[in-house]
């Protein structure tokens, strides 16, 4: 099921196999975390520094059409951006995960790094990345396009990398032994063992990541910084322009196009892929559920395609694999040779040294920048942080309040599930950011409208994830427990207290974690938005970030981003980790 919440906080609990290395475990890991976190902050500053020093020439104002006839083209643009970003994310994630899983030393650094990078709100990078990319490519279009792709990439890659890494670490022992004893080459092991085993995890995580990607893409397409227009032609900007002008016809067409794209993507891309991925399920027995016939089945019957596949595609793949097997073996032999080890050292150490020097410089300049802040800035920051904190948690509470009863009702009744599922899925797949301008159009007429709008955006972006998880949790409660509750005449309250709430607890926690990360992320646009030529905002940390970038106050921008990142990471460690541990030790349903 596509989930709309951006994956800014890691959605997967730490699997048991991905333990930290032993030996004075937690002090060592803690130190690494600190070191990595500092380095990341330094890197964040690096991006801003580049953006600032490379302020390019002013760009012509972007022209976004309001004509529904341009919608197919705009949809295409949006799809292409998502597609390229996803391809990049997948490749990078595979490489990252593989490296982290295969080298102990690399793992100790790369996984904490991934953890923290996942927690940093992606949208806070938006101004910096855009400015940097535009400075590199002074020609308007390319720079901004690359910027949006890069940003989506940042939002997607960590989730996928972690999924691949944890799959690699949990490869079944006997399959691994078979690969060793039958002398599989590195390539063969990757292609016939590691990658297939990881496929199902990769598919599901890709779906979640791409849904998150839409969220970020829409924000990118609407992006305006100060008096500079970084908007890109696409579905997001179309909706924003339409809302801006109050053009309800265009709004309806835009929303319809959005829904259409989402549904088409689901039917023609995700469903066939899920069907195909079933082949990689590591189950020894065939599951009894038969799937509905899909496009894959229809295509399968077209015999021309099969002929082509068998006659040209397969032999080509076989030949390539053979070449790779022999070639890789030869290459591995030469590369592993002792004298080549020196070569590797000569490459690795200077690289590492260069990175370290860069980081030190970045930390130094960053500290200098931060020293420009005055006392009232810090007070402001604290107040903003508190406000957004309240807003995020209220949104989470509101989500839980309606999704838990509804989710449990749907999860307990298969009939209801069948009816509700398609609606929920479509509603969930429409990126909330695309709807934000429309929401503003209605709410700004009310007093205190921005407050409501901000909270509504946060809700819209994150409640679906909680809902789907609660439904999954309710479905997972075994029938015999429900029957026991019935036979022993549990009252409604008892049922909730002893059966339902404990049963859905692990799933609820998973949902809330993702929702929380998404809400923090959403606050950056929810609290501060360019609309109808003016700026509408409500005080908060997200607003602080956006207004600082608008005003060109890089010290404030850096400080507020760091504060948000720190808060998210801290909540992650202190609250969600504990809840996960509680959930897996006490509330897990299997023995």
């Amino acid at each position, binding site marked *: 099921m596509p989930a709309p919440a951006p994956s800014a906080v890691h959605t997967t609990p730490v699997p048991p196999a991905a333990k930290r290395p032993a030996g004075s475990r937690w002090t060592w890991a803690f130190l690494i975390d600190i070191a990595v976190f500092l380095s990341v902050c330094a890197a964040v500053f690096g991006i801003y520094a580049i953006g600032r020093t490379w302020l390019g020439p002013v760009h012509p104002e972007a022209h976004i059409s309001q004509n529904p006839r341009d919608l197919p083209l705009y949809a295409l643009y949006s799809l292409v951006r998502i597609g390229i970003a996803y391809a990049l994310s997948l490749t990078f994630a595979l490489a990252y995960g593989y490296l982290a899983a295969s080298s102990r030393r690399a793992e100790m650094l790369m996984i904490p790094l991934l953890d923290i990078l996942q927690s940093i709100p992606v949208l806070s990078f938006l101004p910096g990345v855009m400015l940097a990319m535009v400075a590199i490519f002074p020609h308007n279009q390319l720079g901004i396009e690359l910027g949006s792709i890069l940003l989506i990439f940042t939002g997607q890659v960590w989730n996928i990398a972690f999924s691949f890494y944890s799959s690699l670490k949990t490869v079944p022992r006997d399959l691994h032994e*078979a690969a060793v*004893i039958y002398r599989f080459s590195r390539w063969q092991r990757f292609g016939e063992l590691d990658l297939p085993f990881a*496929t199902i995890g990769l598919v599901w995580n890709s779906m979640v990541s791409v849904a998150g990607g839409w969220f970020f893409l829409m924000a990118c397409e609407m992006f305006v910084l100060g008096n500079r227009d970084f908007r890109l032609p696409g579905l997001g900007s179309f909706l924003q322009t339409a809302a801006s002008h109050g053009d309800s016809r265009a709004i309806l067409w835009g929303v319809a196009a959005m829904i259409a794209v989402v549904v088409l993507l689901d039917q023609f891309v995700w469903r066939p892929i899920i069907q195909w991925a079933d082949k990689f399920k590591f189950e*020894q027995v065939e599951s009894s559920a038969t799937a509905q016939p899909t496009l894959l089945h229809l295509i399968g019957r077209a015999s021309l395609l099969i002929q082509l596949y068998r006659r040209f595609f397969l032999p080509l793949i076989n*030949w390539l694999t053979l070449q790779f097997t022999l070639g890789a*073996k030869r290459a591995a032999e030469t590369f592993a040779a002792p004298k080549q080890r020196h070569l590797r050292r000569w490459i690795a150490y200077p690289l590492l040294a260069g990175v370290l020097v860069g980081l030190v410089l970045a930390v130094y300049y960053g500290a200098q920048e931060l020293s420009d802040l005055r006392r009232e800035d810090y007070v402001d920051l604290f107040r903003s942080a508190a406000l957004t904190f309240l807003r995020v948690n209220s949104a989470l509470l509101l989500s839980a309040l309606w999704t838990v009863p509804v989710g449990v009702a749907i999860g307990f009744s298969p009939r209801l599930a069948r009816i509700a599922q398609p609606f929920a899925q479509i509603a969930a797949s429409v990126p909330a950011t695309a709807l934000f301008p429309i929401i503003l159009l209605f709410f700004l007429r009310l007093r205190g409208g921005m407050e409501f709008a901000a909270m509504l955006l946060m809700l819209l972006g994150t409640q679906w994830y909680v809902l789907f998880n609660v439904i999954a949790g309710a479905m997972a409660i075994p029938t015999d427990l429900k029957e026991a509750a019935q036979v022993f005449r549990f009252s409604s309250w008892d049922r909730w207290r002893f059966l339902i709430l404990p049963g859905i607890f692990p799933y609820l926690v998973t949902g809330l974690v993702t929702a929380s990360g998404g809400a923090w992320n959403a606050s950056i646009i929810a609290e501060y938005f360019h609309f109808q030529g003016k700026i509408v905002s409500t005080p908060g940390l997200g607003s602080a970030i956006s207004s600082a970038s608008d005003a060109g106050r890089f010290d404030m921008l850096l400080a507020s981003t760091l504060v948000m990142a720190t808060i998210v990471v801290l909540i992650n460690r202190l609250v969600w980790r504990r809840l996960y541990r509680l959930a897996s030790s006490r509330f897990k349903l299997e023995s």
Partner: protein
Amino acid sequence: MSTVDTAAPVPIIEARKLEKFYQHPDGGRIQVIAPIDLGVFPGQILALLGPSGCGKSTLLRMLTGLSPASGGLVYWQGQAVNGDFPNVSIVFQSFALFPWLTVIENVEAPLEARGVAPMERHKRALRILDAVGLDGFESAYPKELSGGMKQRVGVARALVVEPEVLFMDEPFSALDVLTAETLRGELLELWLGHKIPTRAMFIVTHNIEEAVVLADRIIVLGRNPAHIHADFDVAIPHPRDRKSPEFVDLVDSIYRVLTHPGHKDDTAPTRTQVPGGAPKSKVVTLPHTRPGGMAALLEILADRGGRVELHGLSEDLGLDLESLLPTIETATLLGLLRVEEGEAIITHAGRAFAGADIQTRKTIFRKAALDNVPLLRQMEQALRAKSNRTLSEEFFRDLLDEHFSEEESRRQLETAIQWGRYAEIFDYEAESGKLKLTEI
């Protein structure tokens, strides 16, 4: 019939002083497998027999290079091998088939690893699939196959590279009795009919009868640390009849060897001397069983007059060695029965246990446990010494860590806690990991 050359047989694989130990952080070492000398001779099927947890799978993995040995060497045709092992294959207990590859792709995989061309490997794979009787199933996926068919694929895959020695790690224990029997027969047929170029087979099993049916030579392993307890030559001609006197005799002898009381298997491996330190006291190794199962065993014994032959008992109950021995060990440890010459004899306390109600049984068990299991006695005393009668499990884990590897000490503690709770010596709270003495 063993077909060993009478003129100076050279073992294909030979292990000399092969051992496995864990280095304890403060100096001493925990010996898991004592230095073993073993030779696999051409023309022989060798069976490695022993109870679970004795290290036979580890030994197999050391002989095939999957797991490094802590000491000693493995020789291949007289040459010392270092890491890269020549042509061997393994058939796994869990089949180890790749679920996303078809049957033929699974069988072709080792050939692909050796760089054989697609046409050639397809041909060879088809040939071997035919030999194991899976003709027509090439394009099936493993999840469409039954357990027996999956293992056939496992065997086909192992044989397709024409290994010199075929290793099998409890190959039939995941199958039902009839299928296992069929596969055993077919394997023997391939071997005896010289239809495969394999020169020797090494089978790890815990099923005595399986070993006697298949092997030309049976090595019985004892444990703590693993060592060769006995070495039997099986001279019975094929086809072997399970009811024939030679067969039954051999099975009996093996049972006797395995249940021989007083052999040092009951005690934990003593730590090698730490320089300057006194040797630690011997700690009894607990067999990993739940005490509940023992009651049924004792009832059956009492029912049959107090003496029963172990072989007959296992047949009647339909249990194999794996399930029966640990329970017998537990009862022996607690003094509720004793084993003599392959017979189980109930003791006075055991008779009382068999005839009592639940509450009395608990009392008897409690007394027997405190009398015979030093660990439980220690735990009870330690808890009593504290004013709040509570201690954390980590405390006892540290005690055990000195005698067992980390994993084993965890399991020992788990078993001790189970027994302690059953005997109502103490209560255990899993979340906090605390033990609290039960006041009688």
